[in-house]
């Protein structure tokens, strides 16, 4: 593992033509930390994550993974990262075994190590019955499990997870949550975790960053955010709505909808 912070984002700007998706974002993921990136739909979470994993080229700023530049040293960065994308678009024509075999090969994993980890994860996620079925035929939740295993297979020092618990059944969600907490417990690895489910972020993340229309509105532990907002024992959802100034908008939207039926 290279030196430096698991993830350091400095003044990152991402734009698609005229539209600025992320505007001078700065954040860090520290060793041993699960960092929750929160935001509404279109807030810039996925664009941020895509710059980390090399899918989007930043318009400005720098992204470093353990000190390695995500643009100029993209290949080495990819060896340090395990990634779960927002949508589970995989090689539909492969089976989970064939897909994981390809990932293990690209990541130069030893046969015994790859097999042992695969056996453990497949058993934990109860994937045995689907292991030889084409991914095309699998449910969204099962595809998500395959992606999670692929991200964990090489035990990367940085996990980048974009809405990783989407579509998972409650048992698998629980396994994943416990697994992620243990994953960083050694104090060296880091996790960047994007979600718009506040309860999950509240339970899981050591620190959160609240992103709104590409701008970081607030960052810190839940306690620090409460203190900053003088919000007493407010939930993360309430803090989120206040920071993004969406609270009034939510009430107005509900009022305008009236009573169903």
């Amino acid at each position, binding site marked *: 593992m290279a030196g430096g912070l698991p993830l350091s984002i400095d003044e990152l700007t991402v734009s698609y033509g005229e539209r600025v998706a992320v505007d001078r974002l700065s954040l860090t993921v520290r060793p041993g930390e699960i960092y929750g990136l929160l935001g509404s739909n279109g807030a810039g979470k996925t664009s941020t994550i895509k710059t980390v994993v090399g899918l989007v080229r930043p318009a400005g700023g720098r992204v470093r993974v353990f000190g390695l530049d995500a643009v100029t040293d993209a290949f080495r960065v990819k060896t340090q990262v395990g990634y779960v994308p927002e949508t589970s*678009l995989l090689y539909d024509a492969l*089976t989970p075994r064939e897909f994981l*075999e390809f*990932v293990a090969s690209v990541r130069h994993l030893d046969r015994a190590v790859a097999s042992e980890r695969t056996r453990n994860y*497949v058993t934990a996620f109860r994937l045995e019955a689907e292991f*030889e079925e084409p991914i*095309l*035929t699998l449910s969204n939740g099962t595809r998500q499990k395959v992606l999670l295993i692929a991200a964990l297979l090489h035990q990367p020092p940085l996990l980048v997870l974009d809405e990783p618990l989407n579509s998972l059944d409650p048992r698998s969600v629980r396994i994943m949550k416990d697994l992620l907490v243990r994953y960083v417990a050694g104090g060296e690895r880091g996790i960047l975790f994007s979600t718009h489910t506040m309860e999950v972020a509240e339970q899981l993340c050591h620190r959160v960053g609240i992103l709104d229309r590409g701008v970081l509105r607030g960052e810190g532990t839940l306690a620090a955010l409460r203190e900053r907002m003088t919000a007493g024992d407010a939930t993360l959802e309430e803090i989120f709505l206040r920071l993004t100034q969406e609270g009034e908008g939510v009430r107005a939207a509900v009022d305008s909808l009236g009573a169903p039926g």
Partner: protein
Amino acid sequence: MTWREAARLSDVAFTELSLQAIYAFRQGNLVPTETAQRLVAKARRRVVQSKAVVSFVLGLLAFGVAFGLRESRFHSFAFGGVSVPAGIFQAALLTGLLSLDVAFLWWTGMQVLPTFLASGVLPVLEPLPIDERTLTRAAGLLYLRLFDLPAVTVIVTTPLLVGFALGPWAGLAVLPGAVAAVGFALALSLVTGRFFVRRVQGSRGGGGRTVVRWTYLVLWLVPAFAMFGFVTAAPAFFAFLGRLSAQGPSLTGHLLLAAFPFSFAALPAVTASGPVGFSLDPVGWSFLVVASAGYLLLAAWSVVWVLASVRRVSLVPPAAARPTSAARLDLAPQPVMLAVLTKDLRIASRTPGFAFLILLPILDAVVIGLWTFETATGSAVAAGLGLAAVTTAALLATFFGPAFFAIEVLAYSYGRTLPLSNRSLLGGKVLLIALMYLVASGLVLGITLARVFDPVVFVLFIAAELPAVVAAALLELGILFRRARARGLPITNLYAGAWYAVFVSVPGLVVAGLPLLAFELARSAGSYVGLLAMGAVALGALALAAPFALGREGS
């Protein structure tokens, strides 16, 4: 709801289908940075281009047959010493044309059906408040739109060109045959396409099943070789018909009149040249009329069945069997280039469009190899055919192989996040192209080994050409990588334009062809001198292409 509403729905669905067929977003490709309107316009234009190519080929076939029909009015023909009456000759030609129309449309349908079923455009409409009948009609119309231009080409050009060759009444008489050919092709595409999709795309993993899948995929290509079958079998067919017509009315003759598509082919021939040579006694006439009417009804029913069934077929998932627990959960990682090759072969084994790119060069070479059985053992012609088969393998592998790079469009948005270097990716693709060439050449060697000529020369010929095949692959893929980097992502969309054909395939074909040319020029001094020249040119090409593709600039 009405047919008009169904047509409107099918138009929306067709736009989505075109977009997916060209850009494969649902299969994990990255979205290009263009406006949605431009993407949609491009996708629709490229789908029309594809249909135009198929239609052009169908039109060309009809034109060729019409030329033969016109000639038959002025000349008499004999095959294998048997004289064939003009009407019989015309019926045989039209039988070939209608068979090829069915085969070509059928094959086209099988190529597009996996995309059609995987697109999910019809299931999206299901939860909407649209009545059952309109949904069914919309699905049927959408399916028909896959074939519209080629089908219209067959139905319009066949009567027109036959009318031009044999007169207007003959042109009119061939119309039922053209309509029936289209109807049967639509139904065959749906039935067999669905069968193959279930057996191929839904097939579980495991070595034995992979072999079964590739066997199915070879069968998938059978209609594509209809032309070869027709050309090969034509002289024997003509001679058979000549002998049959000389016998006068017979049971075989009557059965032939009742067989599809001969019955439809006989109608314009009899109209133009009279009943001479046909078994047209009262029994024969009844066979012909009843069979033609029956086939026409069957074709009409086929179209009705297709219109009613497309929706149901599109809603059935590809998985055929109930999942069972995997026997073992271990993995077998490979060196990266080999892993790329294995991944591609596995994907191709469940994706007919990609399997086609691998199998066509191999099967083409095998077919040419099989022609050696028509020649005398050990003759110069046989030897020439054997080498021609290997040459075909080299050139077709070079031509089709790089197009296989489009497989990277699948899950591209995930694959790019893996630490997979361009060099490894390129190496994997070059391995595939070399493998295609070696498998094809190996099969040709096997076919010709027992009966052709000196196998040492043959093996050396294969080996001498191999560096040129690798060089051509490196050059083509090197150009693609550079072009991709210059234009940005996604790289695989480069394939949709004419650019690919001109700037990638042509240099590759030149590089693969130069050693073959060197062999031809030098062989007059002896086979081994020719092989030496060939090997030297091939190695030279490799020495030039490798740094271009694998150097820092290239990869």
